[in-house]
């Protein structure tokens, strides 16, 4: 019998970062239909930073959360509708209750990799409402496997039915994946997963390493459509796993069709590994920073790479985008001191 791997599709959530959260109804409907036809097990939909995140800080979405989820719901039957949730942005009263009324099936309850205890109430609430809940630990390159296991065990104890390690900065190499995934697999009673970013060109290799290390859930995005350099390219994942004789339940031809549809109708620019993505992967900064960093670099006439390196030095996490302007002002000040002294 073939071994099973569950592929979770984050295109309509992680991909939102790539188009400044401007998904429209038509795009959501088209892609959900295509994913459903291809037999994708679950589709995550929403603002790049998740439910309730639309803001000046991380960008406004074109549509309200409930509009995005409603249109996705209308176009999904077998494929589960998933949301990304982060305490600090999302609240039960303002956001989760409404999403559950619309009929979300699956919740990715996410937090920075050392903060699992802030997810307790949301996980308990979602489970009480009969939802499937997967714990998502983000920026996992920042800490050891022992700390990751401790945090994952907390989520497991709150009711999470699986744990996914996010390589939010695209900083992992396969040996890091092997070390951390196999350690979690042996320490937990629930399935483990991996969410790759492609900053160093390792997304597919890392995802496959995760599977070989015992991961049962792999995140992918169509054409890699995600923040920064993008995610593990979903249709490539499906193909490689098929070649390796894993069972994903996804029809290869139909997911290739879905990729065409997404490329024509949703993806403005195919993800490529740009210089900034490489720098962000190396400096360990969340890929979602590349757009705002480029914008601020242009505005303040600075080298975006310098901003990234400084952000990495300050160990920023997602949601701290307001630091970009402060770093830019600091660099500007340093530059002008340097210039004036060298001129004088």
């Amino acid at each position: 019998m073939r071994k099973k791997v569950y592929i979770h599709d984050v295109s309509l959530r992680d991909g939102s970062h790539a188009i400044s959260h401007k998904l429209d109804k038509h795009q959501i409907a088209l892609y959900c239909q295509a994913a459903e036809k291809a037999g994708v097990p679950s589709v995550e939909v929403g603002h790049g930073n998740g439910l309730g995140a639309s803001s000046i800080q991380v960008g406004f979405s074109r549509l309200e959360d409930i509009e995005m989820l409603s249109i996705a719901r209308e176009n999904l039957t077998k494929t589960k509708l998933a949301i990304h949730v982060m305490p600090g942005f999302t609240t039960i009263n303002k956001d989760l209750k409404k999403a559950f009324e619309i009929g979300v099936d699956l919740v990715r309850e996410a937090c920075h990799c050392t903060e699992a205890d802030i997810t307790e109430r949301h996980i308990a609430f979602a489970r009480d409402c009969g939802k499937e809940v997967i714990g998502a630990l983000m920026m996992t390159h920042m800490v050891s496997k022992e700390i990751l296991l401790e945090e994952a065990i907390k989520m497991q104890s709150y009711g999470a039915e699986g744990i996914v390690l996010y390589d939010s900065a695209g900083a992992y190499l396969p040996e890091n994946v092997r070390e951390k995934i196999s350690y979690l697999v042996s320490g937990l009673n629930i399935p483990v997963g991996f969410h790759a970013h492609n900053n160093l060109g390792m997304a597919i290799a890392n995802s496959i390493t995760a599977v070989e290390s015992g991961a049962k859930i792999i995140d992918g995005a169509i054409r890699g459509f995600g923040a920064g350099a993008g995610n593990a390219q979903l249709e490539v994942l499906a193909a490689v796993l098929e070649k390796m004789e894993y069972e994903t339940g996804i029809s290869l031809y139909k997911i290739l069709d879905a990729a065409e549809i997404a490329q024509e109708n949703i993806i403005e620019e195919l993800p490529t590994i740009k210089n900034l993505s490489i720098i962000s992967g190396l400096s360990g900064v969340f890929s979602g920073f590349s757009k705002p960093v480029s914008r601020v670099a242009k505005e303040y006439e600075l080298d975006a790479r310098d901003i990234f390196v400084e952000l990495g030095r300050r160990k920023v996490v997602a949601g701290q985008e307001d630091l970009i302007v402060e770093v830019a002002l600091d660099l500007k000040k340093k530059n002008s001191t340097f210039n004036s002294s060298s001129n004088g």
Partner: protein
Amino acid sequence: MKKNKLNIAILGTGNIGTDLLIKVIKSEFLHCSLFVGRNLQSKGMSKAINLGITVSDRSIDILEDNPELYDLVFDATSASQHLKHAVIFQKLGKMVIDLTPARVGILCVPSVNLAECLEENNINTITCGGQASIPLAYALGLVHPNIEYIEVVSAIASKSAGPGTRVNLDEYIETTEKGIQLFSKCKKSKVILILNPADPCIDMQTTIQATIQNPDMSAINAEVNKMVSKIQKFVPGYNLIVPPTFEGNRVIMTVRVKGLGDYLPSYAGNLDIINCAAITIAEEYSKSVLLTRKLK
């Protein structure tokens, strides 16, 4: 019983409660007669015992049984617990300063509405992010009533957020949003809280962004600067690091709050600002009570 000081009790021995204790010990107007929680082994409790403070692990029960021991109580437990405590203190007729986001009593930002709050017997200090941001939102509202939208993002060091704060994140957001709207009169508000695990710890930082068409920047600067110097009187580590700046269609400003380093290190400006607010309220209350007693 100290003659020239008001007796206060502290309920909750976590980060907030213990830092409050140190501040009360330093205060000219307050005396801590009881420090109560549920666990005599906790870090805060050991600290209090070492300082020679009367402690108890009977939590609310000891306060209910011995109302004569204190005139005012700080509740530094959690929002859900305060809902129960509030009823008991109401019955006992005790002044309560509630540091949880339970929102039972009047919302207080000392630099804006202290006098009005002292008329009440349950005063809520809103949230740490609220204490940092609401005065500035209020200043914006003075210049531009009917602001369309105000957004507040606070980043705090992970280590400065105790278990109480962590389970209260939803209430934190909702209470701060209410406060922003109430004090600034803006139409809509959004609050985001980021726990930052970076080591060394980051100082508390709060960014306020407001959507304003054609802002009067000189009036905004004047009101904001006035407010900042008012706050600095009781929170010395409160600093405007990005002054009001007009960008696109919004006004953005950032404050950084360094704590006094009383119990937790100075990065925990979030604890410091809410506790400084609570102490300011208690001291004002104490002055008025002591004055009345003297007159009698």
